[in-house]
């Protein structure tokens, strides 16, 4: 796993210093404690905290887009929630013009992963570990969850369990 694209979150918990103002997005109840202590850690800087549902969806996407389109350079974005949601939010933030340096991803423990089906190109959320399998709800392929994570799709790559044995 040392050379895979699976996020090593300890190393990604870095953000450029000196931001002028900060927005914290927390996803789900499990993220509240972490978000609260984060928010209280910014003495003197302007901090907005927005609580959102645990799963990434249209509402969260619209709120992030609105925040980003009003933001000026000097803004920092902190994302607290399940890994699947944090990955999705980061992908949306980068699409909105943010740099990795301006985003602090803080995933809280969660067993769920977003899996991208290499066969029908859809994604689904499943409670599955890397190396285990999950059935694609769209095309019914049995997928093995590979240790490759796309930052763009915010998903683990899944491909047919028997892809290597097929004639």
């Amino acid at each position, binding site marked *: 796993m040392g050379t895979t694209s699976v996020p090593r979150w300890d190393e990604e918990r870095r953000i450029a210093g*000196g931001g002028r103002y900060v927005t914290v997005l927390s996803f789900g109840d499990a993220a509240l404690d972490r978000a609260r202590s984060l928010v209280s850690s910014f003495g003197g800087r302007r901090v907005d905290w927005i609580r959102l549902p645990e799963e990434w969806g249209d509402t969260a996407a619209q709120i992030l887009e609105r925040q980003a389109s009003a933001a000026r350079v000097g803004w920092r974005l902190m994302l607290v929630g399940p890994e699947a949601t944090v990955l999705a939010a980061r992908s949306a933030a980068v699409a909105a013009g943010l740099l990795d340096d301006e985003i602090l991803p803080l995933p809280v423990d969660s067993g769920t992963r977003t899996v991208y089906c290499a066969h029908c190109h859809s994604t689904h959320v499943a409670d599955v570990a890397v190396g285990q399998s999950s059935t694609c709800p769209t095309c019914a392929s049995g997928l093995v969850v590979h240790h490759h994570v796309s930052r763009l799709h915010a998903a683990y790559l899944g491909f047919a369990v028997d892809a290597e044995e097929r004639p």
Partner: protein
Amino acid sequence: MTLTSDVPVRNSAGGTELQLTVAETIALTPTVRHVRLVDPAGRTLPSFTPGSHIVVTCGTGPGGRPRRNSYSLTGPAFEPDHYAISVRLEESGRGGSQWVHDLQVGDRVPVGTPRSAFAPILTARHHLLVAGGIGITPILSHVRAAVQWGRSFEVHYAFRDGDGAHLDELHDLCGPRLYIYTAREVFRKRMGQALLEQPIGTHLYMCGPTGLVDDLCERAGRAGWPDARVHYEHFRVGDLDPGEPFTAHLTRRVIDVTVDSGVSLLDALESRGVAVPNLCRQGVCGECRLPVMSGGIDHRDLYLSAAEKEAGDCVMPCVSRANGPRLELDL
């Protein structure tokens, strides 16, 4: 911008030489001359990235060595029929700018192929372009590309009254997106505001005197700009202190090279026959970087990051020196 170099560039990535001919020279201001270079056979020249520069062989300097200066390309970048440079006369310089100012139509000029060290970031949502004086030259090439590709941009151009090169062309290209300044305080104040109000996704590009660039970098940092959004090109590096003499020990060759006060480590190595790839010889381009085994370093370049300087395992020999009696190089 102007960088200088004494040594052929054939070792470097962009070092292929072109033999071009002067097609036109125009006095843009009392101190800036614009020179248009074409292929003698009328061929299209290699395309380049906006913000690129060419190394021009400006005759020979003292000691008969070729004198090489870098000049930003100001003209169109895609399959150009000419390369254009705008050169400010540096009366106290080494004579390269005087040589360019003396060029006549029809003169032959050897130049290297374009090198890109100041490119636009293609994912930027907005481009904040800032130029001081003749630093407008790479910015002009950014503007051309931004207009051509419909990118969002604005230009802030500070210059001494009466000495604003390319003003008419910039007005035509930018319209209301051009802000000009002839008073330093007005410029500083307006930039302070501009740094606070850029939409997220903006990248800042600046080219100008070291003082202007350093000041803006520092203020951008205070306004919360991450380094990755800030891009700059220096020109006119001031004369450096001659420094104390020291000995460079080359661990592979097992020789000692004495570096006298007032002589660069690069010059000392070359005079002992040790070839080091190099280009600008002013601590800007990064070409001559050498690995250091041991010994303290007085870093005086603009190329290495603070962390790289702190690590102390490499040196830019064109400007930097030992800060003790001895430096061991992995050479």
